[in-house]
């Protein structure tokens, strides 16, 4: 079988990932964000007698500049061996894509041009003379509509038949003389010496070092020029692009983007922009909370039903009874507790959120909110990581990758915890209902939602406050440039959305949670079952922690539960019940009246409830999130900060509450 290695290049939002996914069936995500594909992913596809290996490069606007994605893409094209480069262009805005085609043709001989989204262009009344385009570009042009699976076979055939022979030769005007004299001295067959000459004139230290290492440019004198080389290069490419596209695009409808602009005006209007945004987020959260209830119960009942059979099996293989108890009541119970409360909300929230993302609504939210963030010297895209944080802080932290500046990304990561995640909602709702709203209030659930919104609002205030303080102290710096593409609205493919969000977000979080739940289960079991001097370790710990609890307006059991709830916020209240009822395993109480009586009999008042909520909201990120923060920042210091910042705010707030209501 013949093998062909193909590099996929394209600007963001052209459906490059859709092409890659459809061909390789790898279901990488179709992204609306530049930088979503930060590394190069690989997939294979066999067609007729040929095996194609695709390398999906990060979306990039150009190969001239220096941003992270651009360097990854350019490096790959320069230094990695492959046979054909496919540049994916957007038929609805061809200029950007053709510019990239030209830049690619300057460093890679064999280029196939794939013009995607032709169906969308047709709908918008954009006509392009592809025949002339092909002639002018001197590269094969293939029309595709990857979402409808149109043109992909033709693309594969074109890749197989493509034989590029020459680099593109751009007329650099005033630079021509210097380029000629430098490139004569460059010793290479592998690279376009003209391109290297330009990098030398630009004094691009990154590539100079690379080529120096390769021994290509030793001892070459570079003349100092009195022109802005980079600007000249950009202008020449823009000019060439214009020449190529001259008179071959016809807009049949004068206002082809009128509908889009209309939606945009509503979504970003002064009066409606922010309310619409809040309502759509509210709907997502509401559907998540309501929708997750039943499946959570079913899962819970199913798993607890299995406790019996599992115990029997373990007894059958003659495991010691202590060990069985540890496995079933410790590990298994904690594990299924976490899974059944965590999984359903994730499976609902993330598909909904990804849907909004793919639709193109989220960049508009960042656009609306940017001003507030720029005042705190942070980035508008942080608004999106905050929304993701309400789904799950770990996902919010990973989501911060969309922020280009490192400083602003770390701010977004460190403040993400101030958004209460889904996992905290059921417990918060229970406590709010019992102590703030009252159990038989006619407007109970509405009032409860209002109080909850109040706490989320408090979280937003802290996010801004902490972002501001951080950017004045540890993460000092001016806000970096904020450039955000507002892509056209596109109806997402529901199936892809679900597969992506479940695979890359829900399962990702769940996997990490399970990893921590197992040791936590062991720990909880040991604490509850091992006795020292006739009293369980749990009770010892409770009495040790009690003084700390009292200072904070709480008690030892609550503190212990908050500490042991480290793997998952969902098990904090069950651990508390375990402590109060002196059982040796996690306990659930569905009946809020009974639960409230139990709490009150252990001295709970409104003040206790308030202090509990504060510390529950602001203590430290759960273990999953903490692991993610460490992975994303690569720094122990920032991971430490992510604990100490919310914890100190929580403790101070509790002390204040304690001071006001002694």
């Amino acid at each position, binding site marked *: 079988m013949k093998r062909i290695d193909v590099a996929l290049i394209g600007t963001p939002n052209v459906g490059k990932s859709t092409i890659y996914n459809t061909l390789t069936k790898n279901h990488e995500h179709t992204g609306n964000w530049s930088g979503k594909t930060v590394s190069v992913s690989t997939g294979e596809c066999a067609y007729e007698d040929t095996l194609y290996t695709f390398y999906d490069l990060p979306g990039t606007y150009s190969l001239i500049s220096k941003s992270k994605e651009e360097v990854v893409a350019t490096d790959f094209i320069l230094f990695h061996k492959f046979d054909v480069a496919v540049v994916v262009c957007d038929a609805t805005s061809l200029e950007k894509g053709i510019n990239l085609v030209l830049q690619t043709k300057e460093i890679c001989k064999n280029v196939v041009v794939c013009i995607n989204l032709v169906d969308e262009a047709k709908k918008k009344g954009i006509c392009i003379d592809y025949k002339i385009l092909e002639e002018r570009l001197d590269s094969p042009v293939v029309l595709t509509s990857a979402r409808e699976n149109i043109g992909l076979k033709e693309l594969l055939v074109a890749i197989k038949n493509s034989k590029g022979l020459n680099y593109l030769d751009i007329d650099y005007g005033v630079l021509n003389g210097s380029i000629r004299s430098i490139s004569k001295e460059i010793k290479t067959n592998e690279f376009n010496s003209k391109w290297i000459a330009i990098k030398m004139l630009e004094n691009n230290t990154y590539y100079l070092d690379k080529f120096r290492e390769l021994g290509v440019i030793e001892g070459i004198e570079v003349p100092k020029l009195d022109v802005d080389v*980079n600007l000249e290069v950009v*202008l020449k490419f823009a000019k060439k692009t214009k020449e190529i596209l001259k008179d071959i695009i016809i807009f049949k409808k004068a206002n082809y983007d009128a509908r889009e602009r209309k939606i945009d005006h509503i979504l970003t*209007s002064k009066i409606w922009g922010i309310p619409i945004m809040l309502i759509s987020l509210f709907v997502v959260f509401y559907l998540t909370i309501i929708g997750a209830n039943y499946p959570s119960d079913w899962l819970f009942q199913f798993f607890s039903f299995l406790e019996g059979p599992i115990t029997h099996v373990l007894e059958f293989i003659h495991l010691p009874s202590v060990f069985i108890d540890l496995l079933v009541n410790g590990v298994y119970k904690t594990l299924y507790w976490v899974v059944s409360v965590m999984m359903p909300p994730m499976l609902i929230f993330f598909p909904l959120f990804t849907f909004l993302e793919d639709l193109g609504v989220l960049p508009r939210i960042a656009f*609306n909110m940017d001003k507030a963030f720029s005042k705190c010297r942070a980035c*508008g895209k942080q608004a999106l990581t905050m929304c993701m944080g309400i789904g799950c802080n770990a996902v919010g932290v990973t989501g911060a990758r969309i922020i280009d500046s490192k400083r602003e990304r770390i701010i977004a990561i460190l403040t993400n915890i101030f958004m209460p995640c889904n996992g905290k909602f059921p417990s918060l709702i229970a406590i709010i209902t019992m102590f703030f709203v009252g159990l038989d209030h006619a407007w109970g659930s509405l009032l409860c939602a209002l109080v909850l919104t109040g706490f989320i609002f408090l979280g937003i205030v802290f996010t801004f406050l902490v972002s501001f303080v951080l950017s004045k102290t540890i993460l000092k710096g001016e806000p970096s440039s904020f450039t*955000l593409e507002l892509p056209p609205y596109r109806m997402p493919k529901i199936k892809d959305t679900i597969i992506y969000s479940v695979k890359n977000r829900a399962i990702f979080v769940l996997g990490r949670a399970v990893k921590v739940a197992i040791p936590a289960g062991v720990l909880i079991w040991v604490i509850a079952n091992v006795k020292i001097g006739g009293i369980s370790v749990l009770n010892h710990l409770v009495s040790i922690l009690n003084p700390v609890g009292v200072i904070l307006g709480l008690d030892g059991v609550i503190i212990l539960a908050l500490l042991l709830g480290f793997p998952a916020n969902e098990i904090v209240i069950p651990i508390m019940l375990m402590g109060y009822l002196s059982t040796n395993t996690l306990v659930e109480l569905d009946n809020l009246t009974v639960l409230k009586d139990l709490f009150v009999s252990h001295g709970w008042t409104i003040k206790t409830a308030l202090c509990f909520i504060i510390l529950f909201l602001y203590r430290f990120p759960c273990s999953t999130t903490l692991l993610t923060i460490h992975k994303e920042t690569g720094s122990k210091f920032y991971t430490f900060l992510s604990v100490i910042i919310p914890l100190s705010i929580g403790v101070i707030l509790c002390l204040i509450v304690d001071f006001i209501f002694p």
Partner: protein
Amino acid sequence: MTLEELNLNDYVTIVNVSGDLTIKRRLLDLGFIPGEEVKCVLVSPFHDPKAYLVHGNVIALRGVDAKNVEVVK
């Protein structure tokens, strides 16, 4: 005048792009190239950032960044 001063639906041509190297390159990459025509298509609820139609794409820029792009009507 600069891009920052545009009102909704103003239509201009870019004359020059300045500023430090990072932002300048970014702007050029996004299509804010001298000679190019730009239209201000969206203004955010707090007036900053604004979004511009350039090269067939809608790009949002903050005022501080848009100041680097000199334009004429």
